[in-house]
């Protein structure tokens, strides 16, 4: 059958199905199962799930229990078809973001919007698309604009169900004999969303009105054809219309392939089997998550905090003058694990949102945390919304984690999101350690940056934007039993890849001058964090071309674990008005790398205006031909005492380009001696080194002695720190503003903070006038419920009055209050032992 025949068949079938749906509606029936409306079905499902603690009240997995092999076959087939759809459809796309790096994902959802199975890829959307579907259901889309066979919907609104607006999702319903039996959705990261600056995640906007186009769960087609209005609208709202058109075809291709697979499964096995399978898969996922938590964690409350910088003081081209201020994200995090395997994450104490695009919505946080959990707690194919039903979240309203504000920008919510979950790795790893699951322990993930973005008139004289996804390839955090993988993936896409340089060059007027493993980027430790890498880019054949950086700067978001060190922090390196062209013409040496930023090597090989500064974010700035830009992709954090690392491993790190020889001594206490200048190993580092075992042993003993001598009792350290806080004299305004903001956001946090540091009840930090004004300005902005999809899960997030829904344990409870040291997991919940 030819593709056009198949398309015709599909339309004919849609028309027939549509008539069946309309007949049902004439009879007063809804499009859900057994005549119910979708909203009734969703309401009933949530009620029964919460009441029974089983998805939709399913206490028995009949299909699975009766014929487990058949169940697994059916589920594996569904999942396999999703993966196949992704692998096939990504070839349709013209952006390396999708085609090379794989920033694409598909999900199959129940009529109520719960994911049954997801493909590989950016599985952050395991739940964001769910929220978009639930939004449509709860806002009675069944009545208006109608949900019918052949309809096509789009969403990229993070308040509805997305992380940030550059992730465009296509969602189509699948019908069978007048009933909506499933939804299929596909999402990919597009190059440009039409923001105030070029690229998918612009950084210079103070509010969402500079984020680019938001499409709020809209119907954009019927009978599997896009409306002409849509075809005319969205290409006009981006700098890269052709790429977005192909991205949309990619998503449609995958969705239709998956729809076809579902229809085939129903034809072979019957609709009732499919319905049962979809329900059981979610319940199975829920049980699997609970069961794994019970097996691998100890009940209790795990606490931590993380920070990341977002510095805008002195930045150019910021859309509002008042946005030119520095922000530090504060994410105090608590994980409550209970005896029955329930799992609650609380961010009480998170500080206020800011005039930057790193703010999060509940969907963003939930999607973000999910993608992390799917790589830790559920490292298998059974990733679906079952796990969502096993967890809940507390995201303080008005904080960066849940802004509920019309103005807040969200273009790169990931910056805070990725940084905020740093303690979650540590919570889980501490649990794993206590239960002996050492292979599962992970020190954390890389801060997934830098983001090379920009745009202007490209080498084809066309308006263009770029968004390099080399950032999908970062160092991974160290494990307890192994080093972290170097330049491996990004936490938001475990299938991530750096992409071929040639592929990027076809769509970016930014030729590669060099690409190499970047030394000293992985955190040091007994197990080293995976190293990041770097690409040295120049600019060619452009006009009015802008580029900018985005990522962590002074601060590292992941702190390392069990004595391991964090990964290296960020920095920016650009060179403008260079003599690179002359160097090419004269065949002179030119910088291909910046392997050792302190060496002066880069500066020695180029003349021009070199900018080197220890920050991670810059706003769009103009670049011309032969200017240079370093794209530095971060490493993962380390685990354990670096003095316990095998010296032979440190030697190998030098040859592999992970550690600079001079830092082997500084960081690891390992003495090496260069024995050959010319030898090359598997890295950009030239030379051969040998280990001086005796000198190393001696140095390490000395270091241990120094530690003992300089170590300070906690009580002394506490007293000194307390004085710093009380006086506030040597604290920078940004730090004081951060804590003051958290204390204003949360009386519980304020009480905890004052109690812990034995401060007066009325204690507050003295802020500069500017900082004071900034806080007042944002605290006075008020709340507007942007998240108005009344699901049970949302109730949890928003149900914050005087007392948080999730118990706040910083002040009124401690781990000792749970069930005592003898506590083991009880049998209140008979979870299946089958994850």
């Amino acid at each position, binding site marked *: 059958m030819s593709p056009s025949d198949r398309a015709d068949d599909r339309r004919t079938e849609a028309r027939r199905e549509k008539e069946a749906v309309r007949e049902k509606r*004439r*009879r*007063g*029936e*809804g499009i859900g199962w*057994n*005549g*119910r*409306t*979708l*909203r*009734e079905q*969703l*309401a*009933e499902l*949530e*009620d*029964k799930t*919460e*009441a*029974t603690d089983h998805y939709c*009240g399913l206490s028995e997995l009949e299909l699975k229990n009766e014929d487990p092999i058949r169940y697994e076959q059916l589920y594996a087939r569904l999942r396999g078809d999703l993966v196949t759809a992704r692998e096939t459809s990504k070839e349709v796309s013209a952006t390396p973001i999708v085609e090379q790096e794989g920033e694409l994902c598909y999900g199959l959802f129940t009529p109520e919007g719960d994911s049954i199975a997801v493909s590989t890829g950016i599985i952050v959307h395991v739940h964001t698309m769910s929220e978009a579907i639930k939004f449509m*259901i*709860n806002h*009675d889309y*069944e*009545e208006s604009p109608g949900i019918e066979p052949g309809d096509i919907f789009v969403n990229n609104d993070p308040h509805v169900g997305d992380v940030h607006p550059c992730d465009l999702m296509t969602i189509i319903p699948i019908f069978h004999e007048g009933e909506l039996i499933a939804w299929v959705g596909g999402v990919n990261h597009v190059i440009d969303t039409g923001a105030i600056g070029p690229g998918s995640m612009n950084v210079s906007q103070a509010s969402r009105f500079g984020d680019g186009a938001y499409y709020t769960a809209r119907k954009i087609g019927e009978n599997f054809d896009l409306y002409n209005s849509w075809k005319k609208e969205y290409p006009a709202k981006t700098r890269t219309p052709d790429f977005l058109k192909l991205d949309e075809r990619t998503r449609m291709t995958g969705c239709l392939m998956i729809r076809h697979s579902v229809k085939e499964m129903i034809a072979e096995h019957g609709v009732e089997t499919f319905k049962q399978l979809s329900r059981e898969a979610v319940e199975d996922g829920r049980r699997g998550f609970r069961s794994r938590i019970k097996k691998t964690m100890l009940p209790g409350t795990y606490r931590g905090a993380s920070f990341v910088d977002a510095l805008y003081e002195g930045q150019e081209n910021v859309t509002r003058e008042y946005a030119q201020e520095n922000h530090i994200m504060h994410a105090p995090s608590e994980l409550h694990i209970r005896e029955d395997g329930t799992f609650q994450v609380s961010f009480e104490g998170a500080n206020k949102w800011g005039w930057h695009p790193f703010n999060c919505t509940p969907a963003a946080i939930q999607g973000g945390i999910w993608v992390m959990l799917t790589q830790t707690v559920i490292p298998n194919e059974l990733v679906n919304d079952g796990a969502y039903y096993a967890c809940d979240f507390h995201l303080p309203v008005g904080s960066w984690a849940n802004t509920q504000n019309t103005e807040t920008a969200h273009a790169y919510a990931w910056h805070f999101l990725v940084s905020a979950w740093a303690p979650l790795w540590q919570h889980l790893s501490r649990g794993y350690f206590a239960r002996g699951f050492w292979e599962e322990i992970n020190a954390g993930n890389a801060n997934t940056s830098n983001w090379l973005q920009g745009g202007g008139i490209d080498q084809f004289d066309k308006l263009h934007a770029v968004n390099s996804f080399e950032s999908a390839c970062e160092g991974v955090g160290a494990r307890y039993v192994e080093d972290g993988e170097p330049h491996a993936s990004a936490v938001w896409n475990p299938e991530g890849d750096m992409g071929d340089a040639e592929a990027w060059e076809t769509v970016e007027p930014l030729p590669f001058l060099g690409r190499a493993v970047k030394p000293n980027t992985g955190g040091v430790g007994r197990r080293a964090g995976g190293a990041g890498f770097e690409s040295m880019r120049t600019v060619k054949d452009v006009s009015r071309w802008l580029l900018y950086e985005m990522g962590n700067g002074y601060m590292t978001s992941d702190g390392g674990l069990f004595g391991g060190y964090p990964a290296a922090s960020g920095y920016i390196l650009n060179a403008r008005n260079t003599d690179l062209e002359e160097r090419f013409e004269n065949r002179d040496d030119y910088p291909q790398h910046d392997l050792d930023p302190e060496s002066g090597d880069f500066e020695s090989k180029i003349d021009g205006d070199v900018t080197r500064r220890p920050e991670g974010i810059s706003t769009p700035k103009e670049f011309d031909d032969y200017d240079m830009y370093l794209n530095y992709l971060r490493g993962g954090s380390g685990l354990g005492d670096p003095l316990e690392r095998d010296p032979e491993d440190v030697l190998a790190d030098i040859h592999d380009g992970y550690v600079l020889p001079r830092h082997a001594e500084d960081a690891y206490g390992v003495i090496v001696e260069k024995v050959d200048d010319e030898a090359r190993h598997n890295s950009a580092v030239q030379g051969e080194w040998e280990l001086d075992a005796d000198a190393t042993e001696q140095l390490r003993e000395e270091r241990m002695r120094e530690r003992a001598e300089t170590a300070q009792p906690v009580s002394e350290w506490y007293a000194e720190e307390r004085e710093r806080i009380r006086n506030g004299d040597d604290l920078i305004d940004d730090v004081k503003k951060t804590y003051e903001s958290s204390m204003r956001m949360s009386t519980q946090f304020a009480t905890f903070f004052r109690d812990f540091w034995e401060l007066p009840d009325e204690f507050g930090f003295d802020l500069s006038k500017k900082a004071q004004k900034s806080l007042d300005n944002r605290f006075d902005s008020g709340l507007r419920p942007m998240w108005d999809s*009344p699901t049970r899960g949302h109730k949890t997030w928003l149900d914050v009055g005087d007392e948080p829904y999730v118990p706040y344990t910083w002040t009124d409870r401690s781990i000792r209050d749970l069930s005592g040291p003898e506590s083991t997991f009880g049998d209140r919940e008979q979870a299946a032992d089958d994850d």
Partner: protein
Amino acid sequence: MTTIIIIKSVEHHASVREILGSVVDDGERVYFLRLPTVRCLGPLIQEVNPMINYGVDYTITPLPEGYDVSTLVEFATEFDANRICIGISDRTLTGKARIDDLTQSILLHDDISGDFVVGEHAIILEELEYGD
């Protein structure tokens, strides 16, 4: 025990709460019968959460457009309903629960009988017996 709750309006929160709270026993089977005058019971279910708050298992079923009382009685007979509850949406000038056409048809139907109780927000027909 099986109870049918006839829903004429999505505003019937109080009726449903009264029926579930003081008429229906924990663990009973409940059928919400949606009349064509109501497009969707979703908001009502989301508000009341019958299983979370009242521990009842339930099913939502639409009565088709153009139904008559015999359709309803057939439904009740098929599920051997012990009770039929109807929300009171209005009262007469003298404060009596207003009876609409459907309620009258049920009350005066030959094939169904039992006890008739008028509550604060609902009319409850219970101990139902069915004729031939």
